[in-house]
């Protein structure tokens, strides 16, 4: 994929991730507060936004739960990585399944109350899935661009 497309993808993910941290952006420019209810509604489509599962720091909280924040930050980190170097590994489906497994286990075990929900664990498992899952999205977009060029 051309670097320009990878750059566009990176910036789209960056804006999406910045939206998650809107409450911190308000501290930089107070006019962001007008977008806050709209952004809360936007992220409510992709996250349950349960208060006890959001990440809080310095009096502000994320608009998505720890797990979702991890997934999106994982996507962002990988999109930044491909701007510099695309890993030469062939991403088989087993790798995606392996990356999803810790998250699935964490969701199941914490839902069954085997252990108490941990934001760090949720964030970490989300980060793993997001960072690996990005390469499948990247491969899909790459194949799409090649198909359209034919």
């Amino acid at each position, binding site marked *: 994929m051309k670097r320009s497309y990878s750059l566009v993808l990176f910036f789209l993910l960056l804006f999406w991730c910045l939206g998650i941290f809107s409450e911190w952006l308000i501290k930089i420019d107070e*006019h962001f507060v007008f977008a806050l209810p709209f952004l809360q509604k936007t992220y409510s*489509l992709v996250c349950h936004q349960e208060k006890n599962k959001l990440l809080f720091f310095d009096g502000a909280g994320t608009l998505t739960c720890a797990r979702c924040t991890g997934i999106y930050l994982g996507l962002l980190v990988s999109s930044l990585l491909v701007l510099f170097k695309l890993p030469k590994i062939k991403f088989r*489906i087993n790798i995606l399944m392996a990356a999803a497994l810790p998250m699935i286990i964490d969701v199941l075990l914490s839902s069954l109350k085997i252990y108490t929900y941990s934001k760090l664990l949720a964030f970490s498992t989300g980060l793993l899935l997001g960072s690996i*899952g990005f390469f*499948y999205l990247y491969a*899909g977009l790459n194949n*799409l661009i090649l*198909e359209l060029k034919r």
Partner: protein
Amino acid sequence: MRKYLAALICGFGAGVLQIVPFVKSFSCCMILPLAAFISLLLDQRATRNFEKIAMKKALLFGLFTGLFAALFGSVFELLITFLTKNNDVIASFTDLQRIVQNLPLSEEIKKEVLSIFQSVREDILKSGFSILYTFSVILNNFIVNSIFGSVGGLVGAQIINSRLSNQSNGK
């Protein structure tokens, strides 16, 4: 239309599930991508075509799944709001008030933001309908669901094609 029947079915399912709070706490952001993936599988079975899926087809299926999910999700959400005169905006008003009060903002900005939200809340409590809320729901649903559906279609096709490659290599 028949061509995208699988997308319609999965989009309908995703649209309904998106407004069920219990389901969202399990599946989070995966509802739409999973729905797009399932729509590709359903289409394969319906057309009995088990060849590799073209990315253009995967993108279109994902996009249509997202659009149908947005359509049904928006209709159900607005209908439920109209009938019950209650929704997440009403429920989260106290939280939003607290968040806005705790933020380092000028009193003028705080008043303005809360008055916009208050007017939406009052409209919904009175008539079950608010233009701003309706616009927000429709815009959000159509944009976000289209994107997530498309992503799900592309990634889903990668998974299906990878499985097909493994099966043909295994033979």
